[in-house]
């Protein structure tokens, strides 16, 4: 008996030491300082990453924190860990700790000026760090872009499935609509193409027209969503699940039968407009708008629809309007994400918007957590990183990932980080008491 209790105590004391250490040195470090730390680490990696990696026995700097090599060549695990500590962990911790006090003052100053300004400053810093980090390797750029798009898709599906509690399967269909609309528009207007003819507008302005193209893609998705919403929201129940599923199949099949967009072979030749900054800005706008929506009283009617539609109706809430608006809104963002995806890959084919995509998106939503913006971000990032990390396992990856998701569902049926509110203000404010009160 005593032995057992001793070990438990010892273990607890170890963690409490770590926690105390963390609280002592880092509890007052604001986000600003962490971002600067990340930037410094990224710059450090750019300067000495490859030489250092060779020094400790790796062929070059690891692409994704060594996730990829760990499974391929386990011998490299110690150097990968060393690399992560020396290049990432130590600089981040050091810098964050060193400039903690100063950055608190800066954060307080920014925060007082305006929340918007402060948010933009943080995002800019975050982007610069991300840009430098991703610039280290072309593969990283692609992975980062895809993860950002996954965040958009996951979040927009979470709005319907998590916040509103309906089960929608139509997101691949919406993405396909967006992807094809955007591709057709940009190829038709700005690219000389054999099927769509010469560019109708000077290609030079294409980059500036891209946001408009994306908004149109989103709008087309929303129109598609109207087709699903009108019949399925008349009655409560599982009809949305079935009708939206049929919708996904119909869209896929429709595109496969349209020879002008290449049928099942797909469509290629989209201009290279979806650069990292473009994707980043769109993702941040998406997160911002969705977070605004779900936190407004107007948006919380979704939760009322989910938790008790009859009561919602009796409390003056027009639930039908809520369902329509929410569904179209979610479809809009799926369409925008689809349009961006087509331009990131510069190729799109109907086969990639089928059941596989559906399973992937649903997995990300439920993995991360329902009714939670942070959950969706964690879900999208986590799922994609996991998927990249397990890539060396090839086939077995698709056994391990489903098992992990089943386990998560069993132990946390609503996902890892469910039912939380995402408050930007809390994130960007200074961490020490003095500056916060100022």
């Amino acid at each position: 008996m005593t032995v057992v209790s001793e070990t438990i105590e010892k273990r607890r004391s170890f963690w409490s030491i770590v926690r105390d250490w963390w609280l002592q040195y880092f509890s007052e470090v604001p986000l600003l300082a962490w971002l600067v730390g990340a930037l410094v680490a990224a710059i450090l990696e750019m300067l000495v990453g490859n030489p250092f990696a060779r020094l400790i026995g790796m062929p070059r700097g690891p692409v994704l924190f060594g996730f990829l090599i760990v499974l391929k060549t386990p011998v490299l695990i110690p150097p990968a860990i060393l690399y992560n500590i020396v290049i990432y962990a130590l600089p981040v911790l050091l810098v964050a700790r060193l400039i903690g006090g100063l950055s608190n003052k800066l954060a307080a100053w920014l925060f007082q000026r305006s929340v918007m300004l402060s948010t933009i400053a943080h995002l800019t810093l975050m982007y610069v760090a991300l840009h430098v980090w991703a610039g280290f390797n072309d593969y990283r750029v692609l992975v980062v872009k895809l993860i950002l798009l996954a965040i958009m898709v996951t979040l927009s599906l979470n709005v319907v499935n998590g916040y509103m509690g309906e089960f929608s399967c139509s997101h691949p269909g919406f993405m396909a609509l967006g992807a094809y609309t955007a591709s057709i528009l940009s190829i038709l207007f700005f690219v000389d193409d054999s099927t769509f003819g010469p560019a109708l507008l000077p290609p030079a302005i294409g980059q500036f027209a891209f946001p408009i193209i994306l908004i149109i893609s989103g709008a087309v998705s929303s129109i598609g969503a109207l087709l699903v919403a009108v019949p399925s929201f008349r009655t409560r129940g599982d009809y949305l699940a079935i009708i939206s599923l049929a919708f996904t199949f119909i869209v896929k099949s429709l595109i496969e039968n349209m020879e002008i967009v290449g049928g099942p072979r797909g469509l290629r030749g989209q201009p290279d407009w979806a650069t990292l900054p473009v994707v980043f800005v769109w993702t941040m706008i998406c997160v911002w708008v969705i977070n605004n929506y779900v936190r407004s009283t107007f948006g919380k009617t979704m939760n009322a629809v989910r938790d008790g539609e009859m009561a919602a109706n009796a409390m003056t809430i027009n639930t039908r309007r809520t369902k329509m608006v929410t569904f179209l809104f979610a479809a809009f963002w799926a369409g925008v994400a689809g349009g961006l995806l087509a331009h990131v890959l510069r190729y799109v084919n109907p086969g990639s918007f089928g059941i596989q995509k559906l399973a992937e998106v649903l997995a990300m939503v439920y993995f991360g957590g329902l009714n939670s913006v942070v959950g969706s971000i964690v879900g999208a990032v986590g799922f994609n990183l996991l998927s990249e990390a397990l890539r060396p396992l090839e086939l077995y990856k698709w056994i391990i990932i489903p098992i992990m998701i089943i386990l998560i569902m069993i132990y946390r049926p609503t996902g890892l980080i469910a039912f939380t509110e995402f408050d930007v203000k809390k994130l960007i404010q200074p961490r020490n008491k003095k500056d916060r009160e100022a």
Partner: protein
Amino acid sequence: MALLEVKDMTHYFGGLRAVYNYNLSIEKGEIRGLIGPNGAGKTTIFNLITGIYRPSEGSITLDGENIVGLQPYQIAAKGIGRTFQNLQLWRHMSVLDHVKLAQYAKIRYGLVGAFFGTPLRHRQEQEIEDRALELLELVGIRHLADQVVTNLPYGAQRRVEMARALATDPKILFLDEPTVGMNPEELKDMMEIIRQVHQELGLAIFLIEHRMKVVMDLCERIQTLVFGEVVAEGTPDEIRNNPVVIEAYLGKEIET
């Protein structure tokens, strides 16, 4: 003219006659009670007036305006607030959110405000929140504002429902067995709240209740419903001594 006027309302579920020839007229500031044995159709009458079912026959007017055929949310916005017999709270939401959401009809910032967080939105959200806190103060659960409703004790949940119904700015409040399942302590508090609401906000109240004491104490006039038909109507004293009511509740005396 009465605030709420129901004339000759009849409703069938399939072939079953649930409510027959029901008449009601409630004045401003009146407290009216509706009693009757289980299955008499009391909640059905609530659901008919509040628009959850559409009556097969009859007319309902609120402030002289016909409300038959309107959606429940429209009727609620016109001024009929209600609570439910079996609590219908939104399980994942905080108390404050409940009371804020019920002020939905007041929101003017629209989609632009919801998506982009305009100054108008911040102002309105603040107003709604202030009002919500006032109402929570009124029903005595302001200190629980940030709690998730499922964590609250039963009595407090009832109060949340009350505050939520009040937040819709009703002209008349429908209370469906507000004291069901309460202990004597909670019962006393709830009656106090109902009285207070009635006095401070000057609301008309239409009350379904099982406990005679509550109805007799609160109501000015009482209707008794048996098998969907009103068998007696009058002041508490009249009802108490009405043989038909006694029979409906206690059964017929066996003739010996």
